[in-house]
Structures are given as C-alpha cells and as structure tokens.
C-alpha cells in the first residue's frame, strides 16, 4: 500500500440552500478543493461521490456534468451518516492501491427542514406502523438510550451531556462554516425543550444542506504538485460494520464498531490516543459524543464524566485539553448526512496545515488528527491524518 496525502480541501458553509440543487452544492465544494490543490479537474483520475437521500440519482456524474466531464470512473456511495467518509475512503484506497495517483471525494446533502423525524414511517397500512407503539426506532430514541446506558453503568448525570453541547456551541462561534454560531449557557441547554431524554433540543444536531470535498494524491504527485506546501498523510483509514452483540438488533450498538475501528486505526497509523492533537467525532447527539470519548480511547472506560469535568474536549485556548469538535461539531456545524464525513476531514486538514480557514480556532502545534463518523445500521469510519 502506498502513502496517500490530502492535497486540497473545500467546503461550503453548512446551512440551507433551497434555491440550489445537490449537484450544484457538490460542484461548489469540488471547485474550492481543486483551487486549493492547485490543479484542474483534468488531473483527477477517480471521483467518489457521497450522497444519501438521492443515492439512486448519479450525483457524482451530475457534479462532473457541472465541473468537467472527463470520462473518469465515478463511484456513488451511500452508507448512512458515514456516506461522506466512506467516499473519502474509496478515494484513499484508489490511490493507496497504486491504481490512481489523483482521486477526489465529494460529500453532499440537501435535507431542508425535515428534521429528526424525516425518512421514517411508510408502509401500506399506517395502522401497522410500529413507531411510538412498540417503542421508538428513531435517532433521538437510539442515542438517548445510548446515553442512558452510560448513565446506568457509571452514574453519569444529565449535566455532563449538557456541558458537551455548551462546549461545542462555544467552539462554533469561531467557525464561519458552521450552520449555527450561537453561544449557549448550561441553563439554555438544560431548559430547552426535551426531545428524547436525556437530549434536549440543543443536544440534538440540526439538519441542513452542505458539501465538502477532498483531493487525495500519491507521494510522487505530492512532490510534483505541492510546491513545498505542508500536506497531511492519511495514516489510517478504517471502516467497520456492526458485529453481533446481544442487544444490537434491538438497540443499535454504536460502541463496539467504534472501538474496533479506533483500535485498528491506531494500529495502522502507529500512534496512540495520547498522540492525538484534535478529534472530530460524530456528535449527532450530545450523548453520542460522551460515549465516543471512551470508544475512541480519549479517556478510560467509565471516565467520560471525569474527562468532561477536567476540561477534556475543550479547545486549549479556552483552558481545555484533548480538543474535540473544535469546528462546533454536528451539534452546531450541522449534519448534512453525505457531507459530514468529508467536512470533518477538512477540519482536521486545516489544523494540521495551519490553513487560513481554521485560523480563528487553530489548535496549536497540531500533528495528529482523528476523524470519526458513525452511520446507524451500522457503519463506522475512523481516519487518522498526520503531518
């Protein structure tokens, strides 16, 4: 396997773009990444497109129909919330295998205002709809209960989860790419209406539209094209699915596949959790972020509450350590499903390369960054980038 580097990245501000189409949003991010890389679409040899809600609509080709139909292979990827990061991994594998020297991944999604209940339900006779009648299978219930498991095992309090939301919203005030950039107090978060206990409204990520892109190259191409610019290496790219565990089919087990992915990623990169300068993890809900502190090895099993109390996850500028989701995370930045996985890699790259786009929130001396995404159903990716 060859070394693979991220030569260029692009992202549009997450938000709502009802006047634009999905291919247009994807094309915008792709053009930014090409400009950042200093190449044109003619140099790109493989294109991986991640989009979930229009997975049958050939979004990848339609992006190229906007920015350059060069006839290259296009892969359209759908993998729940891990759609974008799986597309990134496809591009990584294309270059790592030696088959291509320049590959591009774009993640894009347009969700509008359908909210957390979108996409569920259906069936021919609604009398047989199970939702709300034999429990809830919607995301707020799944991640509410994932937090409740932690509460049950370790006595974690509602305030611990709420503090994560306060932290991420504060981080987002320094990220112009974030859908929301509002600071919230602990009272704001706790007093917001409850969605699914223990997650209140501000402990649930918003839905919206967005796009992000990355260009991956081989070492030879990097030497040709980087012109001395610092570019991170993709030191690990791991994808797992949910292994059999006792309750997985009743309550999706988001822990085991994340732990496996993180462990494999650390082995592949030859680093440990203590070496990680910053992490972007999948905080679709505040409860998810807390349990992933442990799943990703940022703290020990059962010690997430202590980690939070000691300033864990908070940007060093704000007096914290082991920064997590300095972008504002999904809770503030937003979670346009297909775009999310590529966008969090953009964030990591910007810190590792001291890019202008993360100037206001630069993690000092960043050398190793970890990006984690989970898609329910389930798929988990962990990427580790190093400079």
């Amino acid at each position, binding site marked *: 396997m060859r070394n693979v580097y991220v030569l260029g990245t692009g992202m549009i501000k997450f938000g709502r773009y009802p006047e634009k189409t999905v291919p247009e949003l994807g094309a915008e991010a792709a053009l930014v990444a090409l400009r950042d890389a200093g190449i044109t679409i003619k140099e790109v040899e493989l294109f991986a497109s991640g989009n979930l809600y229009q997975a049958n609509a050939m979004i990848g080709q339609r992006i190229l129909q906007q920015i350059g139909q060069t006839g290259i292979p296009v892969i359209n990827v759908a993998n729940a919330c891990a759609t974008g990061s799986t597309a990134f991994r496809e591009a990584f594998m294309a270059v790592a295998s030696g088959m291509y020297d320049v590959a591009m991944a774009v993640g894009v999604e347009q969700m509008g205002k359908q909210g957390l209940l979108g996409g569920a339900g259906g069936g021919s006779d609604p009398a047989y709809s199970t939702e709300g009648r*034999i429990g809830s299978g919607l995301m707020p219930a799944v991640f509410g209960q994932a937090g409740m498991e932690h509460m049950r095992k370790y006595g974690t309090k509602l305030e611990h989860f709420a503090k994560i939301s306060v932290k991420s919203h504060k981080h987002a005030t320094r990220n112009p790419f974030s859908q929301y950039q509002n600071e919230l107090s602990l009272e704001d978060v706790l007093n917001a209406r409850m969605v699914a206990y223990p997650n209140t409204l501000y402990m649930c990520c918003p839905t919206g539209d967005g796009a992000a892109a990355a260009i991956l190259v081989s070492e030879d191409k990097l030497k040709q094209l980087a012109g001395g610019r610092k570019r991170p290496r993709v030191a690990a790219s791991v994808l797992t699915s949910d292994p059999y565990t006792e309750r997985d089919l009743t309550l999706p087990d988001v822990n085991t596949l994340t732990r496996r992915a993180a462990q494999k990623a650390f082995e592949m990169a030859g680093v440990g959790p203590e070496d990680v300068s910053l992490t972007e993890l999948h905080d679709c809900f505040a409860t998810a972020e807390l349990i992933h502190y442990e799943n990703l090895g940022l703290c020990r099993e059962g010690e997430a509450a202590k980690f939070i109390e000691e300033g864990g996850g908070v940007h060093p500028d704000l007096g914290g350590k082991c920064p997590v989701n300095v972008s504002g995370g999904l809770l503030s930045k937003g979670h346009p499903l297909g775009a999310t996985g590529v966008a969090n890699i953009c964030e990591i790259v910007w810190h590792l390369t001291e890019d202008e786009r993360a100037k206001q929130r630069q993690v000092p001396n960043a050398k190793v960054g970890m990006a984690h995404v989970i898609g329910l159903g389930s798929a988990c990716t962990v990427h580790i980038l190093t400079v």
Partner: protein
Amino acid sequence: MPEQQTPQAETGPRPILPILRLGPKPHLVGSKCGSCGAIFLDVRRVACSKCGAAGNLKEVELSDKGKVWVFSVIHQSFPGIKTPYVTAVVDLPEGVSVKSNLVDVDPEELEKNPQKAFGMPVELVVNQVATDRQGNPVMAFQFRPSKS
C-alpha cells in the same frame, strides 16, 4: 422497517408484528439458532448472524416477563402518537432483548429519577393501538411494571 402482517380473510384482532401471538395467553416468539443458541426477534430468518449457521433456526416461545435495560422518554413523535411516552429496551430471561413502550409509569417521574427504571421487573401486556383498513383491531405488545 419490520415486515407487515399479511392481511387475512377473516376479521378480528391482528398483531402489529408477526412475533406477537394473540390468543388466551398472548406471547412473543423468536427464532433460536440450533448451533449457538442465539435468539432473534424474528419469525423468518435464513441464518444466524452470530455464528453464521444456516437453516438451523426454530421458533421458540419467549417469556412474558423481563427487566428494563434502558429507556428514553420521547417528547416528539409522529402525528397521532401521544407524548411524552417511555420507550424501553427489555431484557428477557432467554437472552434476547425487545423494544417497546413502557406503560403504566409516569414519564416525568422517570426523568427525575432514571435509576429507578433500570432493572425494573416488567411484564408483557397487549393493547390495541389502531384499527386497520379492514376494521380489525391492531394489537401491540407493550410492557408495564410487573404486578406478580
């Protein structure tokens, strides 16, 4: 989404899912793997996802008593679903867990004192939740705090 019940000719109560058997003693059924013993809440299954053994699954009756593993109080749901209500994961003694509404409890009380619900002994109840297009009552399995 789970499979729907196939409409039948005669009228009468219908289970919301095929794993619920109505009658004088309503109960849930599962598929048990003859090779490794894993149980799945499923009546049609081609193989075991724990050990991979194919064609070695048989239907088993499940206990009507269990214990709450975790729960959440749902405040926002589909139109027609009354909120707040409690969704819970219940562990059955056979080693399989089932998800449903926890009824006859005070959702607010459980939010104030969540530890009270963890491990709570519960029992199966069958409640009508809808009427289908043919006019048949649709029956759902739910759980309530154990009375015995």
